[in-house]
């Protein structure tokens, strides 16, 4: 396993605070969504990333606008970090006309080409060949952009992920494969869906490196991603980064998650990426109470504004059910 140099890619104090802002914004967004589901204001398709935010922030932080992301269903935060406003994302969850898909679907089933965001179908793994296709165009053009392709440890068992990794490896395409290993695939623990511990081990079979890292450590994720990106930009091809993590909520907001123990959940909550990072920032004297309050206030205001925007947005016109089928 290539070692991760924790301090290779330097971050300014400002950048570190920005990371904290994103962690908090994404957490707050998902927490609010969870409430909105219970209130019946958002109907379904809500897959909380609470507990996994460090992966989203660590992988997206510092991406160029032209870099592409191909997120999985739980990665709503990646859309925010790539430039979609919280209001538009909230409207998307509300299926309002102002959402990305104009109400055609919720969740992350829509994309924004200008921002380098691919919106997948529901079909797990199906985003990875698309990621390879995007990366192929960068290679053809000799651009130094990269594509980040996300999938769960469960989705890693789909044929699409295999076909995509093999193709990307063969042509040394600039893709970073990010496996979010949160122990469960819906109700199924990893040991019931594969005989290995580290999905990262599969990379070798495609001719590139795989690393398994602490997915709850935003800096570790950032360092690993930046390393992989640097290699990809240099023409050295893909890397598979497996981020070990855990989701706090059920698979979706409708899942009571009886299949796991309270102890397991508690253990992982003790590894919450947010306080870990906050403590680190305080210890490095990057963060103080004023700054923290500033960030928290900003986050609260943005989420409130997003909900207001979504609530106030119109529903799509019924006739839009049959438009945009063809260009």
């Amino acid at each position, binding site marked *: 396993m290539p070692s991760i140099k924790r301090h290779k890619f330097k971050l300014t104090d400002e950048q570190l605070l920005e990371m904290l802002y994103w962690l908090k914004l994404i957490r707050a967004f998902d927490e609010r969504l969870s409430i909105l589901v219970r209130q019946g204001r958002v*109907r*379904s*398709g809500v897959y909380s990333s609470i507990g996994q935010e460090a992966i989203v922030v660590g992988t997206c932080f510092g991406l160029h606008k032209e870099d592409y992301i191909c997120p999985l269903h739980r990665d709503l935060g990646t859309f925010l970090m790539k430039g979609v406003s919280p209001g538009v994302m909230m409207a998307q969850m509300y*299926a*309002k006309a102002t959402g990305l*898909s104009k*109400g*055609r*679907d*919720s*969740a992350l*089933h829509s994309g924004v080409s200008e921002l380098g965001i691919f919106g997948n*179908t*529901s*079909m*797990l*793994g199906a985003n990875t060949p698309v990621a390879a296709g995007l990366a192929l165009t960068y290679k053809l053009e000799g651009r130094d952009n990269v594509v980040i392709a996300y999938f769960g440890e*469960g*989705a890693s*068992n*789909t*044929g699409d992920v295999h076909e995509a990794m093999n193709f990307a490896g063969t042509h040394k395409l600039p893709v970073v494969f990010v496996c979010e290993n949160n122990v469960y*695939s*819906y*109700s*199924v623990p990893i040991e*019931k*869906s*594969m005989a290995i511990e580290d999905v990262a081990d599969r990379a070798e079979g495609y001719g590139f490196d795989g690393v398994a890292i602490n997915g709850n450590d935003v800096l570790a994720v950032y360092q690993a991603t930046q390393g992989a990106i640097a290699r990809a930009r240099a023409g050295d091809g893909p890397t598979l980064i497996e981020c070990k993590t855990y989701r706090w909520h059920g698979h979706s907001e409708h899942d009571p998650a*009886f*299949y796991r123990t309270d102890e397991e959940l508690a253990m992982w909550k003790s590894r919450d990426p947010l306080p870990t990072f906050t403590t680190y920032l305080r210890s490095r004297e990057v963060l103080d109470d004023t700054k923290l309050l500033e960030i928290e206030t900003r986050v609260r205001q943005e989420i409130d504004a997003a909900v207001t925007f979504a609530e106030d947005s119109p*529903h*799509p*016109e*019924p*006739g*839009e*059910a*049959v438009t945009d*089928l063809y260009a």
Partner: protein
Amino acid sequence: MREIIYLEAIREALREEMARDPKVFVLGEDVGAYGGAFGITKGLQEEFGEYRSLDMPISESCIIGVSVGASLRGYRPVAEMQFGDFITCGFDQIVNQAATLRYRYGGRASCPIVVRAPVGGNVAGGLYHSQNPESWFVHRPGLKVVAPSTAWDAKGLLKAAIRDDNPVIYLEHKYLYRRAKGPVPEGDEIVPIGKAAVRREGGQVTLVTYGAMVIASLEAADRLAKEGVDVEVIDLRTLSPWDKEAVFASLEKTNRLLVVHEDVKTLGLGAEISAVVMEERFESLDAPVMRVTYPDAHCPFSAVLEQHNLPNADKIVEAVQALARY
């Protein structure tokens, strides 16, 4: 007779068949301890063991291929797709592997698998949790396709599907899981594959439908009855092979036929029924066969959009009125 919901009827059929025949087993994503995304297989793993209600990795092609392999050794696997929409990920194993097996083996083997697929909309599912995939499979020789609309049929057709020696696609409509409640016989009542049911008798217009649209159709028929239009509602139950005789028999009375389905219009099942009726009963038609269907569009998530697309009693009433007037 006791009444149970559609969802429980499916589970009961699985349990009884698994108890009756040790070769019957269930496999799919989360079907083990969790009992499946909709709770259909709840309790089966506890009762029958890990391998008879087997959690599979996310790999629909493998789930169906594994089923085919087991069926070649005399097993009767029941594969669950978590949502019918994902059946596209196992498409090749169904239409090429399973559907052609008996034919390419020169009739010397068969492939008794069931693929259960939760289908249909009106459940806030959106583009990839609402689809109606029946046409793809009705079009393919070597497969059978069933689509129960009542709890009774959900049980009886699943039993028939499991005992059938051919690959059967079993389409269970999510909208009906808890809404279709009714009498269901305990034990071994089989609903034969290939036989439609007349849900309401009538003499003026024949309405052929299946799945969740049976509910909307019966509602429409009730309303039409008040206007004095007397509709016969036929629930196909089996889509391949569909019950031509039942449709023709009703048509002989009414000379007017409407097909209603939730699937999109173009090359939905209504097209085939219309074409066959034209070919074989042209002289019986006092009016053209008409269709009330989903438009040729995807299944949007927004309720406003989805209701625009879904067929419903209003649209059916209007179509029947036009037919009756014709």
